């Protein structure tokens, strides 16, 4: 039976929102507030889908809870506070006002990271001049574009739960977790709603807020393309843990430490102190890190063991763990922000500012801007057409601080494609000149396996290790890192635990029955001919492993839905909408 023969149930709403992250939270907060205060405007905000009722607004979230979000957040919270002027950190569990901010260069304390000669020389000078303590050098100055002074550190999960609770309590909008949206309904060049697993939801406006790897956003990109010159050039995988610090290691809540330089020079990291003696610790493994065997989990453990951080983390306990992909291209990957029947907000709409290392506040703001525009159109009785959305939402966004920051940041990270030092210099240049100057660089493909390990592991031995790991059905990165001299992780069963234990201890991986595998490989031959299989190496939950026939095997019960496999494959991988993923309210 073809899909066309299948009589799919359908229902009508006015606004269907895809995904509940910070962008949708901003959108729904502004909309909900207006719907709750409809005096004088009640008629304009009446539902067309259900005449006589208020505007019917529903939001479908793939994960089984609204607090699934994974992010180590330090935010200036400009946009969030513009919407919620009375919001303070003490209203949200695990949030604190930024109290202290440091930028720290981490030297390599064990001498095995992949450092250039220049960087090794710089490390030697720092050590020689005794400028490094605990193999780290605290910079005396934080560039203004990085500063989060006056902002907040928070748990995105707790923040979203707080906002979601307020929204549901107000009763003007509905949020439905555990409901993946598989695709947009596209009819004659316009989006007419969304398709869920078992039914269609038709809507006058579809708000696409499903993040950087969302199925709906990617389908719209395929259908409508992107503006000329816009593409995803850079990605990163962020992985973090929430750690309960030992009582004697207490840090002042709101302490923010940004790091760079270790465990590999390309990898950035952070430690944010939260209330309750907790800390969020994590790293970003970017796409310009050319190691084809790149892994986030093992590197995160080495990161935590760096003496500068271990002095706080030693004796700590893992409270939660998570990972997510980050769209690091910002505005350069911006899609068409609206079309007939749809609008895009948040990270998937290119709102992330890669120079400031900020995304939550920007995403929230784009959502709030869309809500203001939609309300304006409805109150004026104008339809939600592409032209009207461009004249309202897009215009509002273009003249906002989000757009100004995005333009400054647009090329700030290009330099990283020419090396870490060039990248840092390029960032500084772009930041100091408001984006007028930057250092050029174009993305390279991943390094060939032999090229990356040349001088460290003889070619024959490298081939033998890879063949052996694949035969055993395990990723190669651990064996290769061991062989390169990275010390074994001293598991303590509390914070330093195996990758699989992190899945079990750091939250709950959901894989509800009745859904097909959401990761599939299109052409098995392409997989067999792929030497690196970076999708396996970078898989955050070890859900992908070497398969018997040369095609990676996928276990959806381990998938945390980070989406790293998507951008670590050259287009042979399908990443569909699926229920589940990792659930920890504390991430």
């Amino acid at each position, binding site marked *: 039976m073809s899909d066309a023969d299948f009589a799919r149930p359908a229902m009508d709403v006015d606004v269907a929102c895809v995904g509940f992250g910070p962008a949708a939270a901003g959108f729904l907060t502004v909309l909900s507030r207006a719907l709750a205060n409809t005096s004088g405007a009640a008629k304009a905000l009446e539902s067309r889908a259900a005449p006589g009722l208020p505007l019917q607004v529903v939001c479908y979230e793939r994960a089984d809870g609204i607090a699934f979000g994974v992010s180590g957040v330090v935010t200036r919270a400009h946009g969030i506070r513009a919407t919620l002027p009375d919001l303070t950190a003490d209203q949200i569990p695990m949030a604190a006002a930024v109290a202290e901010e440091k930028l720290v260069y981490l030297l390599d304390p064990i001498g095995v990271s992949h450092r250039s000669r220049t960087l090794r020389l710089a490390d030697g000078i720092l050590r020689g001049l005794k400028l490094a303590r605990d193999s780290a050098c605290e910079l005396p100055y934080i560039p203004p574009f990085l500063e989060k002074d006056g902002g907040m550190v928070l748990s995105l999960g707790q923040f979203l739960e707080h906002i979601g*609770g307020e929204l549901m309590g107000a009763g003007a909008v509905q949020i*439905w977790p555990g409901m993946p949206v598989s695709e947009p309904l596209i009819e004659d060049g316009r989006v007419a709603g969304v398709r869920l697993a078992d039914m269609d939801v038709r809507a006058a406006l579809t708000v696409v807020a499903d993040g950087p790897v969302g199925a709906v956003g990617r389908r719209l990109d395929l259908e409508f393309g992107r503006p000329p010159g816009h593409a995803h050039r850079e990605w990163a995988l962020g992985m973090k843990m929430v750690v309960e610090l030992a009582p004697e290691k207490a840090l002042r809540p709101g302490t923010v430490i940004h790091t760079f330089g270790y465990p590999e020079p390309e990898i950035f990291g952070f430690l944010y102190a939260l209330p309750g003696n907790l800390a969020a610790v994590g790293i970003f493994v970017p796409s310009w890190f050319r190691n084809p065997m790149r892994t986030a989990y093992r590197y995160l453990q080495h990161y935590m063991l760096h003496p500068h951080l271990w002095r706080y983390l030693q004796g700590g306990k893992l409270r939660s763990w998570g990972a997510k992909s980050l769209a690091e291209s910002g505005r350069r990957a911006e899609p068409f922000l609206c079309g007939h029947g749809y609008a895009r907000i948040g990270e998937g709409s290119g709102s992330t500012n890669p120079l400031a290392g900020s995304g939550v506040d920007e995403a929230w703001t784009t959502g709030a801007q869309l809500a203001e525009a939609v309300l304006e159109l409805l109150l004026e009785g104008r339809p939600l057409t592409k032209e009207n959305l461009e004249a309202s939402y897009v215009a509002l966004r273009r003249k906002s601080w989000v757009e100004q920051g995005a333009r400054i940041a647009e090329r700030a990270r290009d330099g990283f494609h020419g090396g870490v030092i060039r990248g840092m210099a390029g960032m500084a240049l772009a930041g100091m000149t408001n984006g007028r100057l930057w250092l050029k660089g174009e993305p390279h493909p991943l390094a060939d396996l032999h090229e990356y390990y040349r001088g460290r592991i003889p070619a024959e031995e490298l081939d033998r290790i890879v063949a052996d790991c694949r035969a055993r059905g395990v990723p190669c990165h651990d064996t290769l890192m061991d062989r390169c001299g990275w010390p074994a992780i001293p598991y303590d069963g509390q914070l330093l635990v195996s990758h699989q234990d992190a899945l079990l201890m750091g939250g709950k991986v959901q894989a509800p029955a009745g859904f097909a595998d959401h990761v599939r490989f299109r052409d098995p031959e392409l997989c067999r001919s792929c030497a690196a299989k970076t999708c396996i190496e970078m898989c955050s939950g070890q859900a992908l492993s070497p398969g018997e026939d040369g095609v990676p095997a996928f276990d959806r019960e381990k998938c945390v839905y980070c989406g790293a496999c998507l951008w670590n494959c050259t287009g042979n991988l399908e990443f569909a909408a699926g229920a589940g993923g990792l*659930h920890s309210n504390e991430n």
Partner: protein
Amino acid sequence: MPTPLHIVVCGGIVPDPLQTLEPAAPNAAFPAQPSLKNEMMLPAVLDPWAAHALFEAAHLSAQVPGSKVWLVSLGPKAKLQQVMMTIAQKAPFELVAIDGPASGFTDAFAAAAALAATIEQIPGLDRGRLLLFGGWESASRGAGSTLQMVGERLGITEQFQGVDRIAARAEGAGFEIMERIEGGRHQVSLLSSPPAVLGWATGYLPEPRNNPQVGMANMRTIMPALQRAKAAAMNGAGPSFASVRLPAVERQTRIVKDMPPEEIAREIVAWMGEE
């Protein structure tokens, strides 16, 4: 045609059983009894046994036209709201919410009193058609006594515990109820007519898929019910807790798929022999 039923499901919420639950001694936030550390931050779910009861109630209600299902839930209001976002998509019901603790340290007697008093006040509830459903155990406490006491307070003498199946008999001739008994066997009883209490084991129904239409219909009553929720007076005389602590846990985790049950059993026996 069988008489339409009034099915009341008592279903509490529990912190997700897969999270680490650490007990904490009475403190400023919970002065009357111990609580769970970070309880308000942990994700909550409908108690798994009560969830089975709800799914069975919805199934039975669909088989007997004109029937209605209420879900009576005692828990912190904010957490109830969060759980309803998921559970409301699974089966049609009307929520009756009671604002109170749900940590598992609450005295079963006091919880039963609060539940029974609330059920008695449900408008339009016909005791002659009442089937009182709930879990025969709880993920937060395994005493299995609350539902029984609710039934007693409501004067319901027909009580079945460890139920795995209920089926309406033809021609309105009552119900056939299958209860678990010792030795992995079931006992089949005939219930001529309500009222009755059924404490559910796991039943045989799968968890229903989320249905957004069911969710939207339920939500029309859920939010008003949460706004109306009265605080339960749970601070009466009950058990006193001398101390609370987390049992020592030794993790020996290994994930293996498709392993034959015999082999799993052999390995567990061998492991126990080592202890």
